């Protein structure tokens, strides 16, 4: 009897867990645009194309390396996969004002948002930057990666291509 109950319990749990693990959508968190307006992260849109969300900061060397390296090949990526990159800065009030000058000077084509109070960073389980997420056409998180070492963008691109096959 005990065994049976346990088994039932486990089955129920695993089904529910299965349910949980199915989808991982974006949390309902407000960010700021570079011109100070509120923006909810769930409103990001790429007409069904894949979306890359990259957490970065102006003081973070590997973050800038990653986004600068992607910037060089971003046009090709977009042509081939229609991917959209969204850069979320976790700069606080010390360096927040440098985000816009840096982004513009670097010639980035990304959508950039500010997460000054680290609300989204916490909600998405990010502990250190850089941290990169890949979202499918349903805006569900299908892949994530911590840190950046030279060449990691190729790994990311492989994952993007899997989504557009």
């Amino acid at each position, binding site marked *: 009897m005990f065994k049976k109950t346990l088994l039932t319990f486990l089955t129920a749990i695993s089904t529910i867990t299965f349910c949980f693990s199915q989808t991982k959508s974006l949390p309902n968190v407000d960010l700021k645009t570079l011109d100070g307006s509120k923006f909810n992260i769930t409103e990001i849109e790429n007409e069904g194309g894949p979306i890359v969300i990259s957490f970065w900061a102006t003081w973070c060397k590997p973050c800038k390396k990653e986004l600068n390296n992607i910037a060089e090949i971003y046009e090709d990526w977009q042509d081939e996969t229609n991917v959209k990159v969204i850069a979320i800065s976790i700069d606080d009030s010390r*360096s927040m004002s440098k985000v816009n000058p840096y982004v513009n000077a670097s010639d980035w084509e990304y959508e950039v948002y500010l997460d000054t109070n680290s609300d989204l960073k916490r909600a998405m*389980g990010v502990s250190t930057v850089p941290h990169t997420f890949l979202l499918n056409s349903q805006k569900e998180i299908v892949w994530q990666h911590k840190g950046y070492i030279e060449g990691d963008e190729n790994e990311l691109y492989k994952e993007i291509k899997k989504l557009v096959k």
Partner: protein
Amino acid sequence: MKKIISLFVSIHFCFFAFSQESNIGVITGNFNLNLQSYQEDSKIGAEAQDEIILNNAYLNLNYTRGNFASGIRYESYLNALADFDPEFKGNGIMYRYATYSIDNLEITAGNYYEQLGSGLIFRSYEEKGLGIDNAMDGVRLKYVPIDGLYLKTFIGKSRTHFTYSDGIFRGADAELNINEILNSELKTKFILGGSFVSRYQQRDNLIFQIPQNVSAYASRINLMHGKWSNFGEYAYKINDPANVLSQSQMNYANGTAFTQNITFSKRGFGISAEMHRTDNMTFKSDRDRDGKAYIINYIPTLSKPHTYSLLALYPCATQADGELGIQFDIFYKFKKGSRLGGKYGTKIAINYSQINALEGGPSFLNDIRTHKPTFINFDEVLHYQDFNISVAKKINRKLNTNFIFANQTYNKDVLEGKPIGDYGILNSTILVSDISYKIKAGHTIRLELQSLISSQIEDGKQPKEGDWSMSLIEYTISPHWFLSIQDMYNYGNEDINKQLHYVNINAGFIKGANRFEIGYGKKREGIFCVGGVCKTVPSSNGFSLSVSSSF
């Protein structure tokens, strides 16, 4: 039969949940572990620890479903790493919250992090690396009655280590986005904001009439027009006798701070100019206690946060009691194909910052309540100065370079809180070269060479560290492996027995959202800062292990 029913129910539940709102919620979080062994090394002054190994770890768990979210953080310090406050001790769930939003009203109960404006009067945040976590415990409401008007209010106590400090905080903030309210397409954008916070702490001092309620307020304006942006905030704190609690020096002075920033940017070019002034603006969650764990506001440091080790050897820290500073930044990219840009473009970043004491001295040093330091004059006492220029250039598909020149002036006595005259004022000229070379797909080797030449602008009594060099070689294999060896060498130390090498070896493995790193080496005693908030790190010698994972 029971089993089948149960299975059916749970599957049904699952489908039901799917059909309801695509799922029954999302679980996210992360886990971090930092472990370090401590062996004695009398040469560098590293002490062995009784426990041999010290450990910090925490696990964050968030659950969100639609407009509902809740979460906990379990923390474990057994015992805390040597560079942490020993009051972090033991295990416990120190962070738990539930929040939901309905019809533009968001309610949070439990722990939350909050910042009013740029933080001049209130900022509750976490910076794990520094051992800062002044999370609030209480309730918070955010309300958006109409598009463009954002209101929030909160009440709570602020965390210090494993407990909550005495002060009770009541705060409110309103932000008005004029363009959103008027639904206008005006090219100029206006955002106005005002905030207020008040601390209640019971009076238990029999000698002085200490105010039980201390309030602070701030107003801010953000103006944007085309490529221009301007942000200014002014903050005021009503008398808060806290800094010096002795009969001879009782301080009833008010505190003020302002920050002002202008930026201009267009494709390939960006500039930022900043200024701030702070006077008697240390605001604490407990007036009778000292230390960074009790600070409840945040005055951003007016200098560039450096990451290269010799550039960050002598970092600036805000003196909230009184300073005046300016900072300029220029970012420029020479276009691809231009003469200086070459095939890939060349990036230049120039930064200058200077921070001085307030002329006339900060208000709290004077017994006279009406004392005012001069408003906008630099005192001749320099706290910090930094001029640095960085040039980043990709030579070809394989070779990437970055060169930095910097000249820094560091008032060690003031910035590290030492007796005046002990260390004097240091000047360092620093050169950094960082070159990486792609050997083949995924394989990169990186070489970093740094040199710091030191001189004294004002002499001190204590022996000088003098010149330093640093070299690092790193090999990475994308996407999984990295290995680095670095040596910091204090060859110029006045004390010949302290002309030492600090060698560190680190290796790591990353897969997806998991990261493992092991290291062995010696660390120099020094100051480690994030965002201008610093902690003293004792010298150490030993192994380290760090595991970090997100889900």
